Structures are given as structure tokens and as C-alpha cells.
């Protein structure tokens, strides 16, 4: 027994010497030469997912987008959209289990644009660009049923409640904030917040952290009664697609020919994207219009500056999430009191042998980036608020019931409500 105790103490002494050298040292105990004909087992190294499968995903994405665009715009079939949704939910959702998805790929793009050390995989770029291109031509057909998140929420929609317009507008501002924050945090290589707080990925994997399940559960429950809560009130990629969709070349139309203004489709849209006709052209009196224009042209820049200033004031709070900045703060705080247990980060940093000054300068650089990022983020939010406000006073002359090209997710539910059919018109 004593022999072992001495051996153990010897090992501890050796360990104390050896710790600094790390794992790259020479072998302390050379591999024995076995006499009994022992063969060493093979080290298990499960292979990663094969490369060609990533290309297959891209092809399937293009195929699904082409199919659903054809179904919506040419065939005008809600049933077809449902089936594509089911397929996407099964393939991109439960089989592929999420990553990389178009919503998250937005952060990869940002990271690649702002950080020279990161190179972007082709699949991430393709998942970002392809839906944008399709939206530019056909509207948000990606949202309709190719995006597994949208498909999931759309398929479980039981009884859509129509939200009040003001509530819809107000909640609709959240995605802009989320988009801005996601870009800020991706550009500073802090975190991918869209992925971290994704509500559905845990459901696709049947495995997630507690908070993920709670968020996912809430979203699923809400989406039984409110159509697509994630798409409308959180999705940052939806913001981009909504911008692109506003100027799309083609788009879903409620009526296949010309609207007879029968009003049957008025309440058909679960996301409240159907615009009523504005046939009355009441010209506003010139003085009030000028007054309003003057007011808006003052309010809009003021909101941008105010937003930017607020954002810049928050830059330290924003940057506190960054692990490097956190570590620098911890080290600075540790210098003062020098007591208590050092955190894992501090221990790891000390053992890495990197000079503290280097870390401090890096952290200071990041905080500066957050300062300017805060200005841009805040300015952007101010602009969005201002434009939303401006939008309230814009009345556009419109003769037909038509979907709002930005808000419409092309789910094709309204099509069945329209009594006009192409055949009737041809027969007439």
C-alpha cells in the first residue's frame, strides 16, 4: 500500500511540474511493446456529414422554391402549398434538424463581411441568397411553405384571430430591432442570437435546453390562434424578404382576373395583409399637407439622431455580452480586490500566456465597435419608427382588394375566397 502512496505523491509532484507544459509535451510513459500479441483497438472517429449532402440540400431548396412559386402563382392552389409545407417541415425541419437555415445564415453573411478570419461555407451563402432571389421575382413564397418555421406555424394554425391594426404595427417593429441586434452581435463576432433564441429548433430535434422548450412551447401555443407569430413579430430574415417582396416582379393576386369588390376575401387573410380598396380620392388641403410634410421632415431625422444617440449610450451594456469584453472586465476587477476564486475564463486566459495588454486593447477595440454599432443600430431603429409613422399618413389610391406585398406571406388562403375564376371570364 505504502508503495502506491509514494508513487501517487511522485505523480503529483510530476503533475505540478508538467501542468504548464500542457498536453503537447512528450509522452511521459512510452507506449509498451506487448508480448502477448495484443492488438490495440481502433480510436473511434465517426465521420461528419458528407459534403455532397450539403449540395443536395441546396438543390432541394431550389426545387421546393420553384415548385411552391409555381403552385402559388400559376396553379393558385392552397392544397399544393400545404403539401410543400409538409415536405419542408419533414425535410428541412425534422430530418435536417435546422442548421444551416436561411434565417440564421444572415448572421454568417454578416460575420463574413465584417470579420476577415471567417470564411463562409457555400451552403450558408446559398441558403441566404436563393430565397432572396426567388422573393425578388415571386414574392415571399419562401415564407409560404419552404421555411420550416413558417411551415410549422402555418400547418398548426387552428383558428386565426385577427389582430388590431395598431397592435400588429407595434409588434411588427420587433423584428427590426431583432435584425439590428443580430447584425450587431454577428458583426462583432459576439454571438449568433437568432440561433441562440430560436424557438423551434428544439422541437425539430426533440432535444433542447429548458428555456428553448419554453419559448418554443409558447410560440406553438400562440400560433394555434394567431397566425405565424414568429414570422410576423420576430423573424429578422422576414424583414429582409418583406423589403425585397415590396418590389417583386410578380406577386400572388387574390383575384385571378379583375376584382369585383365582392368583399368576400376581406377577412380571409390570417396575417391581416389584405388591403381594402381606396376609391374615394379626397385631396387633402394644401396647407395641412405642407404642414405635415414639414413636420415629418423634421421628425424623421430627429428620430434617427435620437435613436442613434440612445443606441450609442447603451453601447457598454450591449458590449458586455461579448466574451472578450467580459473577460477584460473580469481581469480589471480582479486586479483591484485580488480575492475570491478565479473564473474558468480567467484561469484559461492566464494559462494561455497571452499578454493582458493585448486582450485589453482588443476589448477596447470591440467596445469602440459597439459604440459606432450602437449609433447605427439606434439610427436604424429610429428610421424604422419614423417611417412607420410616416406610413400611417400615406393613403394610396387602389381599386382592388390586393395583398400588401411586404406583409403577405403568400400562404394562398385567400385564393379560395375569390368567386372570380378565369374560366368564367373566358366564357363571358
Amino acid at each position, binding site marked *: 500500500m505504502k508503495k502506491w502512496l509514494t508513487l501517487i505523491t511522485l505523480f503529483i509532484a510530476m503533475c505540478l511540474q508538467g501542468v504548464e507544459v500542457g498536453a503537447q509535451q512528450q509522452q511521459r510513459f512510452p*507506449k509498451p511493446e506487448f508480448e502477448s500479441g495484443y492488438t490495440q483497438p481502433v480510436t*473511434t472517429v465517426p465521420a461528419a*456529414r458528407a459534403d455532397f449532402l450539403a449540395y443536395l440540400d441546396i438543390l432541394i431548396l431550389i426545387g421546393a422554391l420553384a415548385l411552391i412559386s409555381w403552385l402559388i402563382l400559376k396553379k393558385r392552389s392552397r392544397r399544393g402549398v400545404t403539401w410543400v409545407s409538409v415536405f419542408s417541415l419533414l425535410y428541412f425541419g425534422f430530418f435536417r434538424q*435546422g442548421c444551416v437555415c436561411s434565417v440564421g445564415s444572415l448572421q454568417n453573411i454578416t460575420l463574413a463581411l465584417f470579420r476577415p478570419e471567417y470564411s463562409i461555407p*457555400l451552403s450558408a451563402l446559398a441558403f441566404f441568397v436563393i430565397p432572396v432571389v426567388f422573393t425578388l421575382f415571386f414574392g415571399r413564397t419562401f415564407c409560404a411553405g419552404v421555411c420550416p418555421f413558417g411551415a410549422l406555424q402555418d400547418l398548426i394554425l387552428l383558428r386565426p384571430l385577427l389582430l388590431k391594426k395598431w397592435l400588429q404595427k407595434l409588434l411588427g417593429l420587433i423584428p427590426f430591432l431583432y435584425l439590428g441586434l443580430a447584425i450587431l452581435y454577428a458583426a462583432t463576432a459576439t454571438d449568433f442570437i437568432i*440561433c*441562440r433564441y430560436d424557438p423551434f429548433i*428544439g422541437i425539430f430535434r426533440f432535444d433542447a435546453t429548458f428555456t428553448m422548450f419554453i419559448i418554443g412551447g409558447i410560440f406553438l401555443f400562440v400560433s394555434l390562434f394567431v397566425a405565424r407569430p414568429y414570422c410576423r413579430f420576430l423573424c429578422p430574415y422576414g424583414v429582409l424578404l418583406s423589403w425585397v417582396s415590396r418590389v417583386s416582379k410578380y406577386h400572388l393576386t387574390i383575384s385571378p382576373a379583375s376584382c369585383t369588390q365582392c368583399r368576400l376575401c376581406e377577412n380571409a387573410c390570417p396575417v391581416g395583409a389584405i388591403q381594402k380598396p381606396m376609391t374615394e380620392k379626397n385631396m387633402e388641403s394644401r396647407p395641412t399637407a405642407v404642414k405635415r410634410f414639414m413636420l415629418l421632415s423634421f421628425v424623421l431625422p430627429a428620430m434617427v439622431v435620437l435613436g442613434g444617440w440612445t443606441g450609442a449610450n447603451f453601447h457598454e451594456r450591449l458590449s458586455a455580452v461579448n466574451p472578450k469584453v467580459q473577460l477584460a472586465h473580469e481581469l480589471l476587477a480582479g486586479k483591484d480586490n485580488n480575492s475570491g476564486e478565479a473564473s474558468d475564463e480567467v484561469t484559461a*486566459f492566464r494559462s494561455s500566456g497571452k499578454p493582458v495588454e493585448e486582450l485589453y486593447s482588443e476589448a477596447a477595440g470591440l467596445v469602440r465597435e459597439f459604440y459606432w454599432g450602437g449609433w447605427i443600430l439606434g439610427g436604424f431603429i429610429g428610421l424604422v419608427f419614423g417611417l412607420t409613422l410616416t406610413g400611417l399618413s400615406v393613403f394610396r389610391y387602389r381599386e382592388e382588394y390586393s395583398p400588401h406585398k411586404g406583409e403577405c406571406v403568400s400562404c394562398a388562403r385567400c385564393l379560395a375566397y375569390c368567386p372570380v375564376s378565369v374560366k368564367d371570364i373566358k366564357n363571358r
Partner: protein
Amino acid sequence: MDHSGKKTNRREFINKCYRYSVAVGVTGLVGGLTNKIVAKDTVWQLDPTKCTQCGKCATNCVMTPSAIKCIHVYDMCGYCDLCGGYFRPNSKELTTGAENQLCPTGAIKRKYVEDPFFQYEIDEELCIGCGICVKGCGAFGNGSLQLQVNHDLCKNCNQCTVATACPSNAFTRVPADEPYLFTGYKKQ
């Protein structure tokens, strides 16, 4: 009638301008990123030389149990009787008794080979990736036990949650055809 026709044309023209600028923007984006695109997909892996065995791999992975597991690199193993990765530092006897084992889940199987050598095998089903054995082996032995992301379990999240939690920034994206970062591993 003439007037409204003109109006729609103007709107259509503005839309067209926007449409073309979006197209130009997307093309510019792709063009700007051309020399940063890698055709091959990347996967997450941790560098064992940077790892400090803090234990966060076991708790921060989105999968339960963690996709990060201890992998035994037999090429580096010294087949020690007194294994720093297997036994608790103060174990009285060098037997397979549970009270002597370091691993919280008993995932390491000790097998007699020949005097005085023993083989240690990891039961991947039981391993939770806590890295306690890795710490022990690195401190007392050769460091043949190493934490690695197992790619049959890893979902390859866009952003690895363990990577963000890792105190020593040991996680990197590596090419999918060379997905492991062992030290001292001889390829067969």
C-alpha cells in the same frame, strides 16, 4: 384616365429601379464574398491543446447528453496500471471498484492486457463529456484521453453553444473532411 395611367407607370418605374438595385446588391454581396467562400462545409471541433477541461462541454451542448465526448487515442496511451484518468487521486486500491473510479458515469472500462499493462476503453454511450478523466490523464499521464466533438452526434449548429461558453476559445470551425483535432493520433 390618362392621368391615372401615367401614375401607375411612374410607380412601376420606381419599383423597377428598386428591383434592379436589390439585384445589383445581391450580386455585389456574392461578388464581394467570392474569395471568402469555401466550397466545403465546416464542422465544429475543439483543439485539445487549448482545452482546460472546465467541464462546460458537458452542460452547454444543446444535445443531452453532450455531443462532445472523451475519445481515447490509443496511440498515445501508456497502458498504465495507475491511470490518472481512471482512478481517483486518493484511491486505496487499484481495482475496478466504483469507489476508486474517477468517471462520474463509470464510462471507462479497464481491462487487463499483460503485466503491468491495462487497456482503458471509453463507453461512448455513457460518456457525458465532462472531461474529468481528460484532466486526470493530462495531469498524470500522457494525455491520450481527449475531448472531441463526435460528429455522429453533433448537429453542427450554426453557432455552437459550447463554443460560445468555452473559456479558452478552443472551438473552431474545421473542414468537414478533416473533422478531428487529436494530438498524437496516427492515421491508419
